[in-house]
């Protein structure tokens, strides 16, 4: 079932690639390169949603002490990371063409990199703690701290001048800055990536639960 959904979202992504390559015109000023944006923004949104959920699941774990939330927090963080990396890499390639440089120390870029670093640290902490209870507890605390830190950093961002392009989606601008067909495409790809992320989270969640079972099996096998 899960794998069928995985294939379905892969097909959806391929269909989107086909349309955005062959049916949508080039952007006037930027040329073909702008197509990267169909992965840049949806990747960012998917990753951000995943990291947001890390904080929520961490708090839920501390409140209920239900293992489910711990596994879910681990799953969403791990799945969020590739999407965040996708956002960073596509952004860098776009910057190479439009700005002429791979990377600039712009607040938006720095904070995106920073949150990726924080959540990579979260995953490293999980691997470093052998005891399941302590792992769940300590990584949940870290999840909440990371959430606060990321929100604070993004808030402080508003005080900087940025050279990152301004928002284009209609909900942020009130419409008019983006062609409806392009925005439609953006929505389709966001949906595809979100679908893929959901499937991946479900798979990863299931794996995390099984890993916990393995830990108890191991205790049973090695106990005398």
């Amino acid at each position, binding site marked *: 079932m899960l794998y069928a959904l995985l294939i379905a979202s892969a097909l959806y992504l391929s269909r989107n690639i086909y349309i955005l390559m062959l049916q949508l015109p080039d952007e006037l000023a930027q040329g073909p390169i702008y197509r990267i944006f169909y992965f840049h923004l949806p990747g960012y949104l998917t990753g951000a949603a995943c990291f947001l959920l890390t904080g929520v699941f961490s708090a839920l774990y501390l409140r209920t002490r239900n293992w489910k939330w711990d596994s879910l927090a681990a799953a969403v963080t791990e799945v969020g990371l590739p999407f965040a990396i996708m956002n960073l890499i596509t952004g860098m390639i776009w910057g190479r063409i439009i700005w002429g440089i791979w990377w600039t120390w712009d607040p938006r870029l720095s904070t995106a990199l920073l949150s990726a670093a924080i959540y990579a640290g979260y995953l490293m902490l999980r691997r*470093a703690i052998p005891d399941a209870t*302590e792992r769940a507890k300590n990584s949940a605390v*870290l999840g909440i701290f990371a959430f*606060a*830190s990321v929100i604070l950093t993004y808030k402080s961002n508003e*005080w900087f001048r940025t050279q990152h392009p301004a928002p284009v989606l209609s909900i942020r601008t009130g419409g008019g800055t983006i062609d409806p067909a392009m925005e439609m495409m953006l929505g389709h790809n966001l949906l595809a990536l979100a679908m893929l992320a959901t499937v991946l989270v479900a798979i990863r969640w299931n794996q995390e639960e099984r890993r916990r079972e393995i830990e108890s099996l191991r205790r049973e096998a090695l106990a005398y």
Partner: protein
Amino acid sequence: MIADAWKVAAKDLRSEWRTKESLNAALAVTVVLLLLFSFAFDPGAEDSKLWSGGLLWLVYSFAAALIVNRGFARELPNDCLEALRASPIPPGALFLGKAFAGFVLLLAVELAALPAFLVFYNVSLTWQAGWVAASFALATWGIAVLGTMFGALTVNLQMRELMLPVLIYPMMMPALVAAIEITGASIQRQAIPEIWLRLLTGFDIIFTALAVLLADVVLVD
């Protein structure tokens, strides 16, 4: 609660004063780093006033990692941490005491290394000195709270010394950036933007509150 926190802090500071192990190490590291950085970045260069504030706080952040690492690790021999957990001190107070001890130690190292920095890099911090002092206190408290919390999270790990820096450096970035901007503004004799002080205050309030709230979870069960 404040009285209990004070007892813990006083105990930590007393034992640190007797051995001076993390104080000496942190101070030595700061001076050596200031010396090393003077080769990487020419202190005589014309633009040195632009970046020397950032350099100072980088050096301090290295010292901070050394000091907060000791905060809870100090209690590991002889299972002192278990004894502290079993004692009637509330976890929030225990945490605050530890953080306060770290704050005092880190501030001491910062102040001791400051003359070396001012002399080596030929700058002065007398411009808006009151705000600079406030930013030192606020940033150091924020770093101490965050570092002590993460020290508690990683205290039982075998790779503690490796994990702690990986976790705290990205987390304390807002405080570091604010401190760097304020110190830099003072060195360049420019007006100090109020937003950085506000950011520091917000950082301290948010993380102190979170840490005290979550101290129960981290230290008790």
